[in-house]
C-alpha cells in the first residue's frame, strides 16, 4: 500500500530530474555556440543605410518637451526629434552650423546675424522660417510659461534680444559682451510656431507635449520622429523623411530607419541584454562592476568596448557654508572653516579612492576641472599630497587636537564629528562616502554617512539643512562661462551656499568679479588666464573637494558603425543622424 504512492512520486521525481538534466545540457550547448555572427564585415567605404537600432534608457522621459524637464531621457528625445541653430561638436568643441547655415558677428561679438538654411520643412511638411526661431526664444523666455531652459539661453542672467529681418535671417543681440557667444544656442530646440503658438499664448508652454501627447503631434526638425510610445516600455522613433542635413555623399540622413528606445530601469538586465545581443547600446557609461563581463564579451567579439578617457565631471564633497546655517551648534566654530576642507583633501588617499570606487580606472583630480577639459584645465593645478600628518597639524591650528586616543576633539572636548549625506542606490557615491569615512577615521575625524533617496538629499541641500554632502554637480558645456549658476555666488547651483544676495566671503566676491570679466572678455588668452586664477582661488579655499575622476567606458554591439563617441552624455548618440547599423 505504501509502495503505491512511493512509486508514483518516485516516477515523478525521476521524470522531473530527466527534464532538468536535459534543460541543463541544452543550456550548456546553447551558451557554447557563439551567438549569431556579429563579426563586422571588412571595413567598407559605403555606410549601410536602413536598419534598426535598439538602445536602452534608465527611466521614462518626463516629457517630450525640453522646456518641461531636463532629465537625461527627455534630453535624448529632444536630441532625436528637434534641431538647434548650431551644434557644439563634442569631440572638437567647435561650434558647427546646423539650422543656421552661416553667421557674422559685429559690435565686438555682441550682434550675431545668422543666415538660416532655406527649403527646410518640419516633420509635418510645414516650412521652417526665422519666425520659428523667434518663437523658440519666446517660449524659453516666457515668464508664465515656466520653461526650465530660460537660464540656459541667457547671457549673464539677461535675455537675448532676437529680431527677424527676413524669413531667413535672424539677428541676435547679447545684452553685454558674452564670450561663450552662440555656444549656448546648442541648448535651444527650435519649435514650430504653427503647432505651439496657442500654448505659448496661454502661458502653458512647459505643459505642452507632455507624455499623453499623440506622437503625430510632436513636430520637429530633428532626424527622427516619434512613431510609437508605449508608456513605461519603449519609445519608437522612425526616420524623419524631411530631415534637412545630408550625408557627405549627398544622400539623405539619418542612415537608420528606426530607433527603438527601451526603458530598462535595472542595470543588470540592461547588461545581460547587451551581452546577449538583445540590445545595441546603453545610453550611459559602463559602471566599474560591469567592466569585466563586457570585456569578456568584447574579447569574444560580441560587443565593442570603448575607452573614452577621463570624465569631464567628477563628484565632489562640499560642506554647508551658509553663514548661520548651523545656528547655535557649537561645531560652527570649525565645521565651516577652510582648514577643515584643506585637511580633508590631504587626508584622503586618492589612490585608495580610485581603487575602491572605480577599481583603479580613475585619475586623481584636485579642482573643478579634469584633464579631459583640455581647453580650460589649469595645468598649474597644485596636486595636494596625501599627507595625514600635515592634515592633523592643520586641524590642530584651528583647535582640533588629538589628546592621545586617536580621536580629534575641539576646545570643549567634543569629538570632531559630522554627517555626510549621499544618495542611496548609486554605488559610486556610496562607496566614495565610505572611503572618505574610513580615511578620515585615520586622522581622528568621525564621519556618519547617511544614504538617503535622491529627493531627500536634494531637499536637504536646497533647504541648507545638512553638514556635508557628497554628490555630483555636473556641468554640460565645457566653457566655464556657460555655468554661471555654479560660479556666481548668486547662482542656483552654487551648491555650498545657494543664491547668496551678496558674496559671503572675500574669495567668493573675487571669483564673482573674475568670472564676470571672464565671461565678457573677447580675448581667449585673457579668458584662460582669468579662469586659471579662479581655479587657483578655488584650490585655496576648496568650497568643493574633488577626489577622483573616473575613466569612461561605453559599450555597443558590433553591428553598430559610424559612431562619433565623445565624453558627453549620451556618449554614442549625441550625434544620432550619422549612426548606422550593419544589417
Amino acid at each position, binding site marked *: 500500500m*505504501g509502495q503505491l504512492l512511493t512509486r508514483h512520486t518516485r516516477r515523478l521525481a525521476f521524470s522531473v530530474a530527466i527534464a532538468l538534466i536535459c534543460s541543463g545540457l541544452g543550456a550548456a550547448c546553447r551558451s557554447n555556440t557563439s551567438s549569431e555572427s556579429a563579426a563586422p564585415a571588412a571595413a567598407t567605404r559605403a555606410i549601410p543605410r536602413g536598419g534598426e537600432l535598439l538602445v536602452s534608457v534608465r527611466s521614462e522621459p518626463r516629457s517630450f518637451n525640453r522646456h518641461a524637464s531636463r532629465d537625461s531621457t527627455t534630453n535624448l528625445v529632444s536630441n532625436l526629434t528637434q534641431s538647434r541653430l548650431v551644434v557644439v561638436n563634442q569631440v572638437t568643441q567647435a561650434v558647427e552650423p546646423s539650422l543656421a547655415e552661416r553667421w557674422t558677428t559685429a559690435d565686438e561679438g555682441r550682434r550675431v546675424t545668422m543666415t538660416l538654411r532655406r527649403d527646410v520643412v518640419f516633420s509635418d511638411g510645414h516650412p521652417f522660417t526665422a519666425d520659428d526661431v523667434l518663437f523658440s526664444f519666446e517660449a524659453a523666455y516666457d515668464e508664465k510659461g515656466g520653461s526650465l531652459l530660460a537660464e540656459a539661453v541667457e547671457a549673464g542672467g539677461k535675455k537675448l534680444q532676437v529680431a527677424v529681418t527676413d524669413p531667413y535671417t535672424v539677428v541676435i543681440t547679447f545684452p553685454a559682451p558674452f564670450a561663450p557667444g552662440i555656444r549656448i544656442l546648442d541648448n535651444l530646440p527650435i519649435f514650430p510656431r504653427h503647432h505651439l503658438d496657442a500654448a505659448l499664448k496661454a502661458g502653458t508652454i512647459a505643459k505642452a507635449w507632455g507624455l499623453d501627447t499623440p506622437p503625430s503631434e510632436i513636430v520637429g526638425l530633428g532626424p527622427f520622429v516619434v512613431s510609437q510610445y508605449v508608456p513605461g516600455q519603449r519609445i519608437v522613433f522612425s526616420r524623419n523623411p524631411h530631415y534637412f542635413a545630408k550625408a557627405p555623399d549627398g544622400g539623405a540622413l539619418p542612415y537608420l530607419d528606426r530607433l527603438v528606445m527601451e526603458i530598462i530601469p535595472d*542595470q*543588470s538586465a540592461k*547588461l*545581460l541584454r547587451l551581452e546577449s545581443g538583445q540590445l545595441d547600446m546603453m545610453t550611459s557609461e559602463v559602471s*566599474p*562592476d*560591469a*567592466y*569585466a*563581463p563586457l*570585456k569578456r564579451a568584447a574579447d569574444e567579439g560580441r560587443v565593442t568596448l570603448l575607452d573614452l578617457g577621463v570624465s569631464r565631471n567628477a563628484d565632489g564633497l562640499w560642506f554647508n557654508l551658509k553663514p548661520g546655517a548651523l545656528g547655535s551648534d557649537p561645531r560652527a566654530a570649525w565645521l565651516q572653516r577652510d582648514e577643515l576642507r584643506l585637511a580633508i583633501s590631504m587626508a584622503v588617499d586618492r589612490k*585608495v579612492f580610485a*581603487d*575602491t570606487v572605480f*577599481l*583603479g*580606472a580613475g585619475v586623481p583630480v584636485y579642482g573643478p576641472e579634469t584633464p579631459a577639459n583640455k581647453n580650460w584645465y589649469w595645468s598649474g593645478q597644485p596636486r595636494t599630497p596625501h599627507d595625514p600628518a600635515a592634515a592633523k597639524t592643520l586641524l590642530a591650528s584651528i583647535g582640533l587636537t588629538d589628546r592621545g586616543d586617536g580621536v580629534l576633539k575641539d576646545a570643549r572636548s567634543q569629538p570632531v564629528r559630522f*554627517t555626510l*549625506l549621499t544618495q*542611496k*542606490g548609486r*554605488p559610486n557615491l556610496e*562607496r566614495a562616502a*565610505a572611503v572618505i*569615512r*574610513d580615511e578620515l577615521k585615520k586622522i581622528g575625524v568621525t564621519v*556618519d*554617512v*547617511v*544614504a*538617503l*533617496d535622491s529627493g*531627500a538629499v536634494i531637499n536637504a541641500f536646497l533647504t541648507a539643512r545638512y553638514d556635508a554632502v557628497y554628490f555630483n554637480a555636473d556641468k554640460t558645456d565645457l566653457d566655464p562661462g556657460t555655468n554661471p549658476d555654479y560660479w556666481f555666488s548668486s547662482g542656483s547651483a552654487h551648491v555650498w551656499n545657494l543664491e547668496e544676495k551678496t558674496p559671503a566671503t572675500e574669495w567668493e566676491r573675487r571669483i564673482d568679479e573674475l568670472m564676470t570679466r571672464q565671461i565678457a572678455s573677447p580675448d581667449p588668452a585673457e579668458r584662460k588666464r582669468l579662469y586659471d586664477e579662479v581655479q587657483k582661488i578655488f584650490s585655496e579655499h576648496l568650497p568643493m573637494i574633488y577626489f577622483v575622476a573616473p575613466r569612461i567606458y561605453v559599450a555597443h554591439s558590433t553591428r553598430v558603425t559610424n559612431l562619433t563617441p565623445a565624453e558627453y552624455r549620451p556618449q554614442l548618440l549625441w550625434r544620432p543622424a550619422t549612426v548606422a547599423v550593419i544589417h
Partner: protein
Amino acid sequence: MTRGLGLALVTLALLSATAAPVAAPHAVDAHFAGLLNAPPTVPHVADAAGAWHAPFIYRWQLANQLEQRYDEDRSTRVPLAWFSGGHVVRSSDEAAAPLLLLGADSYGRDVFTRLLFGARTSLGLAVTAALAAMLVGTLLGGVAGFAGGVLDDVLMRAADFVMVLPAMYVALALRAVLPLVLTAPQVFALLAAIFAVVGAPFVARGVRAIVRSERRLDYAVAAQALGASDARLLVRHLLPSARGFIAVQITLLIPAFIIAEATLSYVGLGFPDPVASWGTMLQEASGNIRVFADFPWLLSPAAAMFLVVLGVNLVLQNSRPERLRDDRGAGVKSVL
C-alpha cells in the same frame, strides 16, 4: 534524526552569533585595500609537492584590477595562526595575506567575519521581531476568535489596516521625522517594533480562524461547562491548537524580516555602517551583475539564512500537538 539536525543547526547559528568576536578572524570593519571581491583563501594541508604541513593558505595577488582577477601566489606558504590575538584562527601574515574563508566583498571586507557578526544583527532582529509578532498576533487573534462579534470585527479590521498600509511610505515618512543619525541599538528597536507591528496581523488572522473553529468543538464546550473561565479556556485549551500554525508562521517570518531589513535600509532606515547584516550583504551582492558567475561567495548570507531557517523548521515541525496525548498520531504516521 532530523530534529537533532535542526537543533544542531540552530545551536551552530546561535554559537556563531555570540562568539563572533572570537570566532571571526578579523574585526567587522576591517578592510583590505588590494583585495576587493577576492576569492576565498582555501586552507590547504598539502603543498604542490605533496608534502604535509600544518594548515596554511596562499596569498592572493591582483592580476587585473579592473577585472578583479586574482592569482594564487604559490611560492610561499602562509601558515595559519591558532588562538592568537583573541581570535580562534587567523593568518600569520594578516597584512599581506589575510585569511578570507569566504572571500571578500566589494569593499575588501572579509565575508566570513561579516557573516558571523551579521548573524547577531539579523538573527537577533528577526527572532526578536518574530517572537514579538507572534505574541501580539496570537493574543489579538485569540481574543478576536474567542470573543467574536464587535470585538472580533474591530480587531480584524485594525489588522487589515495595518497590513494594507504600505510600509515603505511609513518608513520614508519616519525617516523624515527621525534624526538623521541613529545608533545601532536605536535602529534595532525601531525595526523590531515596525516588524512586530507589520507581522502581527498575519499571525492574528490565522490564529483567529483556528480559535473560532476550535471553540465549537466538544472539548472546548466541555471545559466551559466544567466552569473554566474564558481566559483559561483560551490560553490553556484553544491557543495550543494553533501551535502548528504559529510554528510555521515563525519560520516564514524570520527570513522575511531579514530581507525586509535590507528593503527598509533602501529608504534610509537601516543599520549604520559598519554594522553588518545579512540583508544588506545580500542587497549589495544583488547590485553586482557578476555575482552569480564570478563572485558566488557573496551569496553566503543566503546559504546561512537557509541553514538557520531549515534548522528552526526541523525543530518546530517535529514537535507534535499535544491535544491527543497518546501514541495514535505516531501510529498512524508509521502505518502510512
